[in-house]
């Protein structure tokens, strides 16, 4: 049956749709900076950084480090990522990168297994995969750049909180997303460390701020209300500790509840200076991204394959050797406090 004939309407609609579409693709194509080529080409130094999510100060710094490295060896840098830290969002981006035929992907994983298939498809197409900050299962990637040993990261945070609350009392953890490989690994090690070495400290709750500022803020408020005897909060994620510090600063618990974890100096400077936070830890994320980019370059050019014992040079940082399970260690965590925080800018 023919419904109403729309003479001008259909034409108008088609014209509109096509115009919009072509303008968009035309604009995009004109600034299409991505140098495609096919993956597997040993000269294809197009490396894309895919952090857990965009809009995160920590990843801004690490990706800038990567950009600097890529500039040094004349590759092509790009950064893409989802707005929310979820595994399925990352899969879509990995698929797109596979289609684009980039040389290498540097990714911080939202889940150890969910993105495995997509990553392996990329590797089959010749793309080299480097994980940094948060790993996947070892069979899905070529190399993992670990900022420090997981034991070391867990230990430094437990030591800091124990020192700040007098080695006894209730503490809680404000983590990132529930599936994040790195935070979960550190939390497990923290629990082991607490049981073994700090019997008077009780871990009463672990809440997830999803690496989202508003959620972390609200979860901190809820924590303090639900556990009135809380003495300390540990937040092994830069988004979480910044949001928690902001809440504590204007609450009556400032100074009474200790807060520590992993944070960036720029975000935490205010809170350290006014006493909300005494000390926290991190490493240099820029170095992490820098090293990840050089590792990707070494893989693309065929210098290393990710096997144990492989050596490569990473620009200003020097020489690195691949350890067990394809892991490369950056260094040790560093503790920031009121005495040294003014020396850093990231």
């Amino acid at each position, binding site marked *: 049956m023919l419904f109403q*004939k729309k003479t001008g309407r259909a034409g108008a*609609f088609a014209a509109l749709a*096509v115009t919009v579409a*072509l303008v968009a*693709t035309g604009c995009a*194509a004109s600034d299409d900076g991505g140098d495609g080529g096919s993956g597997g080409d040993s000269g294809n130094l197009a490396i894309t950084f895919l952090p857990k999510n965009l809009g995160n100060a920590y990843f801004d710094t690490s990706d800038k480090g990567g950009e600097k490295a890529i500039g040094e060896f004349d590759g092509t840098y790009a950064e893409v990522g989802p707005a929310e830290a979820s595994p399925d969002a990352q899969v879509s981006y990995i698929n797109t990168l596979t289609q*684009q035929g980039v040389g290498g992907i540097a990714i911080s994983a939202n889940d150890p297994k969910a993105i495995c298939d997509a990553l392996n498809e990329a590797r089959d197409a010749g793309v080299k995969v480097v994980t940094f900050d948060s790993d996947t299962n070892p069979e899905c990637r070529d190399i993992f750049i670990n900022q420090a040993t997981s034991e070391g990261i867990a230990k430094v945070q437990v030591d800091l909180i124990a020192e700040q609350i007098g080695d006894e009392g209730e503490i809680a953890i404000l983590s990132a997303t529930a599936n994040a490989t790195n935070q979960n690994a550190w939390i497990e090690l923290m629990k082991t460390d607490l049981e073994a070495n700090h019997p008077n400290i009780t871990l009463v709750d672990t809440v997830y701020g999803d690496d989202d500022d508003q959620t972390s803020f609200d979860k901190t408020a809820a924590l303090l209300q639900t556990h009135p005897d809380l003495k300390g909060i540990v937040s092994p994620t830069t988004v979480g500790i910044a949001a928690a510090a902001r809440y504590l600063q204007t609450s009556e618990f400032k100074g009474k509840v200790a807060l520590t974890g992993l944070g960036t100096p720029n975000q935490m400077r205010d809170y350290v200076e006014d006493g909300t936070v005494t000390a926290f830890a991190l490493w240099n994320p820029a170095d992490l991204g820098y090293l990840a980019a050089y590792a990707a370059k070494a893989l693309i050019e065929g210098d290393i394959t990710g096997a144990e014992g492989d050596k490569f040079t990473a620009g200003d940082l020097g020489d690195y050797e691949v350890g067990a399970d394809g892991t490369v260690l950056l260094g040790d965590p560093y503790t920031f406090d009121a005495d040294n925080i003014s020396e850093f800018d990231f």
Partner: protein
Amino acid sequence: MTTDLISGGTASPRVYKDYSRPLWQRILITREGAVYAALILVIIGATLSVRNFGSPITMTYLLLDVTPILLIALPMTLVIVTGEIDLSVASVVGLSSVVLGTLHQAGLPIPAAALVAIVVGAVAGAFNGFLITVVGLPSLAVTIGTLALYRGLAVGLLGTTAVTDFTEFWTDLAKSKIGGTGVPTVMILFVVLLIAFAIVLHFTPFGRGIFAIGLSSEAAKFSGVHVERTKFILFVLTGTISALAGIYYTLRFGSARGDNATGLELSVIAAVLLGGVSIFGGRGALHGVVAGVLLIGVLGSALRLANVTSDVINIITGVLLVASVVSTSVLNWVRAKRTRPGESKKPK
């Protein structure tokens, strides 16, 4: 008043044609024709201007990505044609995903877990249908409530954890392709469902009843159409197919999470409306809807490949949605003005 019928006897007889325009023009001028034209033009434009678009894996990824929307758009079309709406479909996707994940974690084999998930989806749809047909509530309000309820159940069951250790066999199956072509195997499922829905909608009394309800549910009732029963069945269908889409989504991404597919209902409705289905009910065709889904999918894929960020894609989807619906209104208004010249003259 004498008529001049006989006096003009020497005037040449009027020739009556069956249609006033040739076939090819008639096809192009319908709403669906416009969508097809836009789709073809966008595909050509993208292949020419976006690097890597023309390669076969693009089509594979495109179809894999767009399958949930394709699946849900089928029953959603029927629902919108009756003049109702179902905003809870994405939440049912999330719920069935979580059910699949939790049962799998508890040790149930995937086929059994999938079956349970589908039943859950059917029950969810039946609950919607019950509230809308038996209690008589407006579908917009009910489905906003169930959108929150089902999503809440999904998130409540799993928290923000995701179940991700699905067996390789099933996740590979979800992404497998037919033989050497790049077409995913799920397309077979989709085509079967498409044919079934098309037959029902366009060639059965049940389907005619759906159009009748959309045009005027009172008239339909008096013509013998079981309005309440039809609507109930349609909502059960949306629930079931959403659950099916949820199973596919979970296996394809290998991750069952309460938050899966948040916002999917907007994409489905946008595609359905783009495909020529009228929001007021009573008109629409499935092939136009398929073209609408593909149009949005191709646009999104091309823009993503061109490194245009996904927010621009969202802006374009939103603008297209608004423009397509507004253009209908505007052109109707223009036509109305033109065909009633007598009213614009002042009475003497």
